[in-house]
């Protein structure tokens, strides 16, 4: 599903976030990217979402070479992946329903179908019945689950999450991680960046450890 080939990412500031990183994730796999902050986890995910472009090297996702995707092709590519962010990136002036429906509205899904799938996605994250609430009326954990519902509502084959539990207490964090596990069980490839090794141990999935933008050694969890 995902292949990084000798990827280098140097930011304009001169900081080298990734230095010659190569890795592979199989279709249907669930993988944790671990490492200290600054190890390159976030950068790797940004490259996957085409939020950043690599300085050197190649990234192939679902058979598509990302360097071949031009600016105009980026939106269509992003619609194939679900992204979850540490800061949720919700629209705070719009109700939960609108937030979750956004990817489907963009894709031009018929209205009735949108309604059905938004409810299904909210049901999966345990927030059915909260459609009309505004994000600010929800707890941090609930906001993160709205973000997850939005990421999965269009049924993307790949789900990537950057520190999705960074702001959550341990119980909520475990709950969110189990949610990702469930999506993985129905066939979605999941890549989660997290520094919380404690939590990762409980879930049992492959870990790819990064250090200074390189592979620190892959281990089966």
């Amino acid at each position, binding site marked *: 599903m995902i292949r990084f080939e000798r990827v280098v990412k140097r930011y304009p500031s001169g900081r080298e976030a990734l230095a010659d990183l190569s890795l592979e994730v199989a279709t249907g796999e669930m993988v944790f990217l671990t490492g200290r902050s600054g190890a390159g986890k976030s950068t790797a995910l*940004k490259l996957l*979402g085409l*939020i*950043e472009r690599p300085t050197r090297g190649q990234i192939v996702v679902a058979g598509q070479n990302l360097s071949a995707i031009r600016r*105009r092709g980026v*939106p*269509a*590519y*992003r*619609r194939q992946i679900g*992204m979850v962010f540490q800061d949720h*990136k*919700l*629209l705070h*002036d719009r109700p939960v329903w609108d937030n979750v429906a*956004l*990817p489907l*509205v*963009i*894709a*031009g899904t*018929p*209205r009735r179908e949108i309604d059905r799938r938004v409810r299904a996605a909210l049901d999966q994250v345990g927030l059915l019945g909260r459609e009309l609430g505004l994000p600010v009326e929800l707890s941090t954990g609930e906001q993160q689950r709205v973000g997850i519902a*939005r990421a999965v509502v269009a049924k993307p084959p790949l789900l990537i999450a950057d520190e999705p539990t960074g702001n959550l207490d341990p119980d909520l964090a475990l709950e969110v991680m189990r949610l990702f596990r469930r999506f993985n069980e129905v066939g979605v490839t999941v890549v989660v960046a997290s520094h919380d090794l404690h939590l990762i141990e409980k879930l049992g999935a492959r870990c790819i450890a990064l250090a200074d933008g390189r592979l620190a050694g892959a281990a089966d969890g």
Partner: protein
Amino acid sequence: MAERGARDTGVRRVGSALSGWLERHLQTLVASLGRLARAPFGTALTIGVIGVALALPTGLELLVVNARVVATGWQNALDLTVYLKPQLAEHDGAQLAERIGARGDVASARLVSAAEGLAEFRRWSGLGAALEALKDNPLPAAIVVEPRVVQGAGDAATVTSLAAALRALPGVDQVQLDTEWVRRFTTILDAVRRTVGLVAALLGLAVLLIVGNTIRLDIDARRVEIEVTKLVGGSDSFVRRPFLYGGFWYGLGGGISAWLLVEGFVLILTGPIGRVAAAYGSGFEVHGPDLETTMLLLGSSGALGWLGAFVSATRHLRAIEPGNDA
């Protein structure tokens, strides 16, 4: 049978795709209107500025149109003065007047003898004493000709050709076309009208800039929303769409307020101008914008707003990318 079924479902699929597209656009159209309504003060300001900018060329155009109506009124009451050669006997003059009066394109012809002409001149010139000093009557006899003007076709060309025909008659010294100054007036009106076109173009540009700038501010205010939309796969055109409709509403709102302003002016001016016209014995009435002008105003204002938004949004939305803040 099966083939027709396939075609039917094909048609239905195209139909539902079309109605889906239509539904999405209608939704954005209404949503962007709702967004403007939620910030009534700012919206009213923008619309007011556009309205004033558009009211100016519309008002000037109306001025030209009304002046034209007045000029046409004058043109319908045109007279030709045919001056006869001084040596022509009065009796021949009367005959000539009769001959001219019998023409198909002449409504009436009246002989004004040299003596009558002098008496008339003395009456309104106030130069009576000076005229007494003259030995001979310096005025020639004249025939005042009222052309038969077909209603609506009373243009200067018909009258000019009539004048040429009269000039060729024996005994005629010269023909004076009283239309000359009316024609000059219409020429001036044409020049003014062209100026109105230039003013309209300039103020149209102003509307583009006003809407463009407003949309730029709107985009700044909705930066986060745009970033998030792009993150979840919103294309440039998807992100741009609500702003285009916003621009359209600004423009249309401005057009409507311009129309109201102009109508207001007309209402205010109708009374005084009507009194002036009545004083001059004219039935002239001020014309407000007709249906065509109104449609043109509203259509072009909506289009200008859309275009201003298009240029501005295309330029500024490009700069907003989710990665830029990292």
